[in-house]
């Protein structure tokens, strides 16, 4: 903490903190206000005497109704949820086992393999979607959820593996050795001792993987084409911007409602998540 006079604390702590919080939360406020604002106010010119951009005096749920009943938003939510959940589960299972192997088993090139896996994560998606599109077409997966469920792990598995590898390395080797002397086979030591201890790390990886899949845009845009197959980020953008007409109300309502599941996931696991980030494993 900052020591000294009270004004110093305000100047160096509360003021920057306030600015940071404001910068972080303002977009959400803006989304919420725009969602509730009637069209009449939304398209009022800035020099009108009644112009009030930060507030609305006549809130309405029209945009939300419009979003839910006039578009396929419910379907998009379901698609996104399904794709994000399955992609996360696949990536997590692979990542946890691969991370464990790279951190604990002694085999040739283990160190190099870890680095190589991380490098694959660094290849930009904007480059990868072209060859991937070819593969998707060859396997006739285009315009199905499987196109995304199977391609998201291409960047999620390296990410989870890398994260879990670091986490497993931080767990004292003796825990596992002790378990093996206590009568556990290697897999039992892994399941009963290492995984529970690594739970904060596993949850962090899960949250990240889920968020990355939920927000993913380019693969979803390229591999899906029919409106009823789309995910929230692509659906909202492609169906609510028609030509040069932006349907700001439903657009913002879609963005706001679309960000709720991620926020729920974060707040639900926040304690474990923080423990995972700070790597708190104490004997």
């Amino acid at each position, binding site marked *: 903490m900052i020591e000294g006079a009270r004004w110093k604390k305000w100047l160096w702590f509360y003021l920057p903190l306030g600015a940071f919080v404001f910068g972080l939360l303002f977009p959400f406020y803006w989304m919420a206000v725009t969602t509730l604002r009637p069209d009449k106010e939304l398209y009022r010119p800035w020099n009108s005497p009644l112009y009030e951009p930060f507030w609305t005096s006549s809130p309405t749920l029209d945009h939300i109704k419009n979003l839910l009943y006039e578009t396929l938003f419910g379907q998009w939510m379901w698609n996104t949820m399904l794709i994000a959940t399955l992609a996360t589960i696949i990536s997590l299972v692979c990542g946890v086992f691969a991370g464990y192997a790279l951190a604990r088993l002694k085999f040739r090139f283990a160190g190099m393999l870890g680095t190589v896996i991380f490098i694959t994560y660094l290849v930009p998606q904007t480059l990868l979607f072209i060859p991937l599109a070819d593969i998707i077409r060859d396997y006739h997966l285009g315009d199905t959820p499987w196109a995304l469920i199977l391609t998201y792990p291409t960047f999620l598995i390296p990410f989870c593996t890398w994260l879990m590898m670091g986490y497993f390395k931080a767990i*004292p080797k*003796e*825990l596992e*050795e*002790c*378990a*093996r*002397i*206590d*009568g*556990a*086979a290697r897999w*039992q030591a892994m399941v*009963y*001792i290492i995984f*529970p*201890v690594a*739970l904060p790390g596993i949850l962090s990886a899960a949250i990240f993987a889920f968020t990355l899949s939920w927000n993913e845009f380019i693969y979803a845009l390229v591999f899906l084409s029919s409106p009823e197959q789309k995910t929230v980020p692509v659906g909202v953008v492609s169906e609510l911007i028609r030509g040069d007409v932006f349907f700001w109300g439903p657009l913002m309502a879609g963005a706001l409602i679309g960000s709720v599941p991620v926020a729920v996931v974060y707040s639900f696991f926040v304690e474990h998540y923080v423990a995972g980030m700070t790597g708190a*494993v*104490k*004997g």
Partner: protein
Amino acid sequence: MARVRLKDLNKKFDGTHAVKDVNLEIRDHEFVVLVGPSGCGKTTTLRMVAGLEDITSGEISIDGKVVNNLAPMDRDIAMVFQNYALYPHMSVYQNMAFGLRMRKFEKADIDSRVRHAADVLGIHALLERRPRQLSGGQRQRVALGRAIVRNPRVFLFDEPLSNLDAALRVQMRVELKRLHDRLETTAIYVTHDQVEAMTLGDRVVVMKDGMVQQEGRPLELYERPANRFVAGFIGSPAMNFIGATIAPQGDALWAEAPGLRVRVPPQKSDALRRYSGARVIMGLRPEALRPEASSASPEFAFDATVEVVEPLGAEILLDTRVGDTPVVARVEPGVRVSPHERIRLAFAPERVHFFDAGTEAAI
């Protein structure tokens, strides 16, 4: 209850030869301590017995059965680690029960064993706590409890007291000794602390550079060290070493060094005669030295200059200098000397050791 036998045991990591031809026979009920400086191969040896480290060559057998290729779980041993290695997500009770659960013990049996062990160690009140809620000493007790519930054939201890503070270490040392007397399980204990080794071990094995330097009962090592390393390692403060030349004079042999000329005790003369004119290392323990009136016989005494006086209460340590060699003497608390004073230090002839200057083996 078991005998453990290590035969020509070797361990090589890439490039380093960590354990070299270790042969050791540990009897039933025996408490054997492996002691040595860090990197001497003692922990690696222990880990090979546990099955946590592959054996490069040689053989380990427990009760006559070779266990080289047996998984740790099948060796019926228990190990206590330096950092306790308690499972952080389990309560004390679950920690102690884990090994029994893995071995499919009956629930009632597990419960009675855990509670019995908790009684023995005085940790009954802690059974529902998590490891992070315990102090260092309590964690140590839980780690011990986890080892004893299974009633294994062999206990392995890897520096179990090093993470405790000095006072607690002394207390736990006594408790460990008491526990071993009560359970009579064969135990192998690794430590770098020679005091721990001397107080706990029925037998002490001193290791250095992967090789066994000497093994024997604690006092045997203290009184008859096999070489200079053991002589210097066992005992605190360490033995004084003085480089000397053997000079014959008539029938007697004398050891000469700058500022010192003492007679070689007659019982050692035969062995040292072939070193006439050659250099040897003379070893004198600090507690073998006593201040004497300067008129005393010069045969087994020498003059020294006091540099530092360390009064410890029960005794006084005198850091002195003989010629260029520092010599520590451990004397009675009643002795009154001050720095820069010249004093005469005498020793009993049977308490002087001689070592070969080249091989450093005892003569």
